[in-house]
């Protein structure tokens, strides 16, 4: 699971009012290089929840992103490189996503988050 996906997922347990963002417990993180695509990054920047993204990147052990960012920073290639790396090259392979309200853990194995709910959670 990459952080773009993390930014879209939330805990949908019945009764949970705000299941976003999921906290990350990282046991194994891997890096896989991919080609950079500026247009894509610009497009995603506008849609991301930046705070959730930065916190997520830090829980994967990547601390290069600023707390706050605005669109003008997309002109800087240094910023773009970091943004690209955190968004698309870091993979949470093993660990868990934790519901911010209930503490319920959604396991991540082989890079696949398991968001299935138990019977009493729907």
């Amino acid at each position, binding site marked *: *699971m*990459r952080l*773009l*996906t993390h*930014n*879209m*997922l*939330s805990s*949908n347990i019945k009764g949970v009012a705000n299941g*976003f963002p999921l906290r990350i417990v990282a046991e194994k993180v891997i890096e*896989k290089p*991919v*080609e950079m*695509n500026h*247009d*894509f990054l610009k497009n*995603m920047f506008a*849609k*991301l*929840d930046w705070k959730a993204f930065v916190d997520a990147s830090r829980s994967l052990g990547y601390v290069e992103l600023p707390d706050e960012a605005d669109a003008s920073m997309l002109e800087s290639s240094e910023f773009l490189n970091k943004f690209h790396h955190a968004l698309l090259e870091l993979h949470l392979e093993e660990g868990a996503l934790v519901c911010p309200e209930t503490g319920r853990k959604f396991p991540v194995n*082989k*890079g*696949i*988050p*398991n*968001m*299935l*709910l138990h019977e009493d959670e*729907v």
Partner: protein
Amino acid sequence: MNREKERKRMKLKQLEGLLGDLDQFSDPKVELEQYPTGPHITSRMLYTAENSFGDVSDRVVVDLGCGCGTLGLAAALLGADIVIGIDVDTDSLLTASTNAEELEVEIELVQCDVKHLDLRGQVVDTVIMNPPFGTRKKGADMDFLRAALKVASRAVYSLHKTSTREHIKRTALRDFNAKSAEVLCELRYDLPQLYKFHRKKEVDIAVDLWRFVPGTA
């Protein structure tokens, strides 16, 4: 020409060939309607989405009920920016992951029931899917359509039995807030016989390829 561009130019036959080599359900679960979307149907579905509507390359694409990943992997091969495959079943997701490695493309995989699916941020452009036809669990096809129209911001491509055409159209427009619902073509679908009491190995059923445009939320 870089690698991405080469991919976008991939020929129909070449795409179909690559998809033909993918691993499929080793132990299909009948109640989940697990049968592969064939390379022929998949390549035509994705080609139409790309060439007639520009809904694949440079888009964020979700394959709902991805199974072993054929549709999503085809989208990745045609140059989708990001592909996310979603299925309820662990075994299929692991096969999809192996298939992605074989093809050397990246896809994201998430285990989730479509009934509880929510993806925030309007990031997803296009949903492609071959949902259960609802023959085992009544309404399963509608659960998929509801989720797809909620998640996609640009288009939904889906296969449904031709016999349900009117019902699909009405429900999409009236209940799921679709802006449009259009049958692009009618196809023959080889449905493997999963029921032991059937004598023939496969039945050929009429299926519609749909394109839906989601309404604005």
